[in-house]
């Protein structure tokens, strides 16, 4: 090795850290930090829809979004209240149902069953399909005349006449929740199954010797070890559901009326369809704040474990 080769090599080695991490950091700064900063900045402007001229309006966009026009502090915009309520119902029901269902299936899959790998493969698939395809597929399932669900219900004689699932606000919300549960339960299953496999065997034996009941063993042995997985599963599920537009947009577009309009579809409608980028950005800022708030609360509730893992 010549002197130059050796010194080039040493120089390259010294640059190992900046050369491996640098590109990622630059990329992330450009693709995350800059747009996020721009989000906050855009939320302070109003764009004239005709001329495209931008005007600095301070916090006026937030005011318009959250408060009733001409109202004083404390009277919320009824649209905001109603869409927030829809979001809470949608996220609340689908996360709860998919969590309980996912926990049940994960416990079954944790068993030493023959063909367990096959079952695991079979339950994962819905989560890997494009959400749009899943949404349209469920729209087709719920279709009034020719859809499979009415087909099964009517042709088996369970109901007399077909139900127009997607034309009724409550039923449409229910259909969205069913589709959402179908899509995201596999994710819960995978995460909780990984958690279940972390529980040390000896603790169960000890609990068994102590004669602990089924529930008490779940509560005192399984649950503490499952906590980190529960935290991750719930956090990602909730965050994802608040921001996910795909299913809602292709199944109901927020309708009928505005009965399934949630934050995500409201943001899309405001920013794109109604071309109010300032208000859209303001709603984006609110969603960002709420997301971080929810993460903080979940960490508070599920964050600590009594055992060292």
């Amino acid at each position, binding site marked *: 090795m010549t002197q130059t080769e050796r010194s080039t090599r040493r120089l390259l080695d010294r640059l190992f850290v900046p050369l491996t991490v640098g590109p990622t950091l630059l990329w992330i700064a450009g693709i995350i930090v800059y747009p996020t900063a721009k989000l906050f900045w855009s939320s302070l402007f109003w764009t004239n829809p005709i001329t495209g001229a931008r005007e600095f309006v301070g916090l006026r966009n937030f005011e318009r979004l959250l408060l009733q026009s001409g109202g004083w502090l404390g009277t919320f915009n009824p649209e905001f209240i109603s869409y927030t309520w829809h979001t809470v119902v949608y996220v609340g029901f689908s996360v709860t149902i998919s969590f309980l269902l996912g926990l049940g299936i994960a*416990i079954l899959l944790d*068993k030493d069953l023959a063909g367990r790998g096959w079952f695991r493969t079979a339950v994962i698939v819905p989560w890997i399909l494009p959400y*749009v395809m899943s949404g349209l597929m469920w729209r087709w399932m719920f279709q009034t005349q020719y859809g499979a669900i009415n087909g099964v219900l009517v042709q088996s004689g369970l109901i007399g006449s077909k139900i127009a699932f997607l034309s009724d606000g409550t039923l449409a919300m229910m259909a969205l929740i069913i589709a959402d549960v179908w899509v995201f339960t596999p994710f819960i299953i995978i995460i909780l199954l990984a958690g279940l496999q972390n529980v040390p065997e000896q603790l169960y034996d000890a609990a068994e010797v102590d004669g602990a009941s089924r529930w008490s063993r779940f509560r005192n042995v399984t649950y503490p070890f499952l906590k980190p997985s529960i935290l991750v599963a719930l956090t990602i599920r909730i965050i994802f559901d608040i921001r996910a537009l795909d299913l809602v947009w292709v199944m109901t577009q927020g309708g009928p009326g505005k009965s399934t309009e949630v934050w995500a579809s409201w943001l899309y409608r405001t920013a794109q369809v109604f071309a109010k980028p300032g208000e859209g950005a303001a709603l984006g800022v609110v969603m960002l704040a709420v997301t971080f708030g929810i993460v903080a609360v979940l960490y508070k509730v599920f964050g600590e474990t009594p055992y060292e893992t």
Partner: protein
Amino acid sequence: MSTKRSTLDRLVAPFGVDAETDEWSAVRRERLVAYGLLSVYVFVVWFPIYYIFITSIQPTSEVLSLPVNFLPQQATGQNYVDIFANRPFEAYTLNSVIVATTTTVVCVTLGTLSGYTFSRYNFLGNKALLLSIVGARMIPPIALIVPFFSIMSNPPLIGGFTGSLYDTKIALILTYTFFNLPFAVWIMKNYFDGVPESLDEQAQVDGCSRWEGFFKVVLPVAKPGIAATAILAFIFSWNEFVFALVLTSSEQAQTLPIAVSLFVADDFVDWAHLAAGGIIAALPGILFGLFFQRYIVSGLTQGAVKE
């Protein structure tokens, strides 16, 4: 076969454990119940996929006929032929392949390099940087549709050279690395944490430079982690809809999820052809799920659960 007892075994163990025979029958009964419940769940999960598949192989006249039939009477591949003949489906498919593959290559390359360094080296601010990369995953992408739209229509710095990136595959590739790169860094960092450091040390003792040690010794061991990252990044970018909806407007850049949504006209849906397009869009997911389930699970748990 592992001798590890399952959670269910442990939960039901107090029932009928007195005599050997009782224990056997209890275990068998319990297995039967588990099989039954899992089968019902698998049936419910696969039924909609089956239904959209049979819709895709029936002529429209049969799809829109009553009673609803759950077995196709006259199977045909015509819908698949139609969508390629009447719509630019080859363009949509090609766009999807290009966008998802490029995003995957960028994310895996950058994610592997920096994941390794985050796992092995202490450098100024490494913890804070890693934490902010992880935190970036919490930003709801949809909150950023306004800034992304305006940046792509009028890109900073390079705007003078390229003009607008709106309705280009580049815009989608840039955007999708936004979702996937932080995730890739995190999965790979966790994966390298599990690779023993003695491996790199041995390489250094043997006279490898840091680069040689990384490429020749550590990287080959990390193949399963790379596979997991690549599969997830590919699936996420292949499936993405919202940003494709906002950032594209023609077959120059529109991807398959958009193509499928285009079958929905204002008050009419062409279900037979939509189903065929949907099956094509869903194909990579179904295949990956069936053949690479192990990698998907390991990637997801590396990316989500590991601290």
